[in-house]
């Protein structure tokens, strides 16, 4: 396929390291797609008193159509969640891979995260050197757990609100009041957090602007690896495992797709944040 031929001019071969597997990138893609869909179809309800909410609801084909899109996206996201859980189970119990529970490549918060965060803040104010980050930084772990907790809480409460009559067989009706509150507040938290902090750390900060394609291509350049994750680079170099991760740049179409989809998500996300801020401030 000609589309898979890398751009030799801009991205010479064998200058990259692999960071995310194809499965992980696909999962993030579906997660991103369903998240934007859920946010767009849920916000009109949460801000129903705003004039823009009625316009958005009409644009989505009315509240029933918006609800259908919302539930369709929810199914996609629940699928992502299920696949992710099954991957953890597979690695943990079938492959007996305990590195996902502790250590530099684990998502579990560890003492080093606290130290790195403190060092990072000292660096912000010019009172210390830049921390030597490992495979996952403290904010990436927070992103992960925020989304993990968010999917469980918002997904669980959303399911209750989807099928209240069924859940009423096992839950008293006042739980719907709580589910309703949690679903909206937690969703607001997730939407604002992802569309501001996640976008800032991942894409919009001056070092990354306009965006970092790693989640779409799965690859970082050697320079990026050395600069951003010196801890990981050093560990792998010492263990002689750097070559295992060496890779050619991703095919050009993957870059293009990533930039298009990622760019669209950033624009839509920032638009939603603007609408939310407009609603809160007026």
């Amino acid at each position, binding site marked *: 396929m000609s589309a898979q031929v890398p751009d030799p001019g801009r991205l010479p071969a064998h200058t990259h390291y692999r960071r995310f597997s194809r499965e992980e990138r696909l999962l993030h893609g579906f997660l991103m797609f369903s998240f934007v869909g859920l946010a767009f179809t849920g916000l009109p309800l949460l801000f129903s008193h705003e004039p823009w909410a009625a316009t958005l609801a009409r644009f989505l084909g009315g509240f029933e159509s918006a609800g259908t899109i919302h539930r369709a996206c929810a199914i996609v996201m629940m699928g992502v969640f299920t696949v992710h859980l099954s991957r953890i189970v597979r690695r943990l119990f079938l492959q007996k891979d305990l590195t996902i529970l502790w250590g530099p490549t684990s998502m579990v918060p560890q003492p080093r995260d606290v130290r790195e965060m403190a060092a990072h803040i000292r660096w*912000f104010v010019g009172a210390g050197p830049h921390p030597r980050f490992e495979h996952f930084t403290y904010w990436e772990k927070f992103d992960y757990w925020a989304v993990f907790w968010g999917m469980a809480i918002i997904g669980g409460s959303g399911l209750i609100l989807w099928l209240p009559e069924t859940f009423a067989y096992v*839950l008293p009706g006042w739980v719907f009041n709580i589910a309703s509150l949690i679903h909206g507040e937690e969703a607001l938290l997730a939407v604002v957090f992802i569309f501001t902090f996640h976008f800032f750390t991942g894409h919009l900060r001056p070092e990354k602007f306009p965006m970092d394609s790693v989640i779409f291509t799965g690859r970082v350049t050697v320079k990026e690896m050395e*600069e951003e994750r010196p801890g990981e680079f050093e560990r792998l170099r010492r263990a002689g495992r750097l070559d295992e991760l060496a890779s050619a740049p991703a095919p050009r179409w993957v870059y293009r797709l990533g930039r298009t989809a990622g760019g669209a998500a950033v624009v839509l996300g920032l638009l939603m944040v603007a609408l939310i801020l407009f609603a809160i401030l007026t």
Partner: protein
Amino acid sequence: MTRLLATCSRTVLALAAAASIASAAPQQAAAPKPPANDDCLACHGDAAAVRADGRSVAVAPETFAGSIHGMGGVACVSCHADLAALAEYPHADKLQPAQCATCHDTAVSAYDTGVHAQARRSGGNLAAAACADCHGSHDIMPSSDPSSRTHHARLLDTCGRCHGNEEIIKRGRIEIGNVVDLFRDSIHGKALIKSGLSVAPACTDCHGSHDIRRKTDPASKIFRNTIPGTCSSCHEGIGREYWESVHGTQVSKGSPLAPVCTNCHTAHEIRRSDVEGWKLEVITECGTCHEHSLETYRDTFHGQVTALGYARVASCADCHGAHDVYPKADPRSTISDAKRVATCQQCHARATASFVKFDPHADPGNRERNPMLYFTAKFMNMLLLGVFSFFGLLTALWLGRSVQLKAAGEWRRRRGDDSTEDGE
């Protein structure tokens, strides 16, 4: 020409009285014989008859002959009484107003108590209608006749000559504005104009005819607490329901706050109750008094969907009833413990006693009513506030540092020099 005072009463008695006065007149008038109608028409029957200033004073003989007064043989001088004793013709330009009260004293005294007479008397507002403005003058027909200005089907045009005329509305200082336009599109207006229903109300059915009074007048048919009575003269069944309800009971006790029909339905723009726009508007109408209930309703899915402009979900009346609203403690109430499951089942077919423990007006700020919700809301607020403030601050610091380094060329230096890994 001076404004003619006339009124339309189609009772035979009134005709008979008019006729008897006409025939009695010659006996009473001693000296000059009063002119017969033919004498008058000798001049006025000419279509070209004008007075000194050029205005027409013509009366078409066949028009008068076809009118109720003409058919009843009423003499010209019965109304134009000051000509009965006149000998010299042509008579003076300026005559006394035609005296309708001579025969129609009941109608005229009713008129005298009304808003039109009041406006003419006290305000000197001569735009206000007098007898002839509604009834006509020489062409008056009984209101049972379809060609009559006061026939049920023509009332809207007759009243609309003033109440649908922007210029007169302005000149006559009519506060309510162009009410005919509002009425035309209402369910009553459509039934009257489009469907031609004789049972559809025209103006007079609610306002009365001669004794039209201001709504602030306790004797008015449209006085606030009289309105339910006026409406139930047609909507009898709904009236019965309403008077039993919590609102009706309050109104019958003289409450100035409890809603009457027009509070929800409006006066002239009454729409079908199954129209989406009306179903949505009436929610805010309930909310003008039940402010807090509207607020908590808007926090629920039901309230959010209706706020977006879709009426397919429950609004006030779907759960509380429309005319038969009772307090929750009343066993007749649709939200009473006994009836609530059935009420929810209207939409949620599988609703159970457990299902209806949902609070459609839950208030996260009310610890007594919704304790679990209260604490959940507190927790969520703290969570949101904590996360946003912490990461807001972090982002601000980070951005500041990045911008500063970028400005200082630090990033370029770092990118150019691979050995400098910590950036400092």
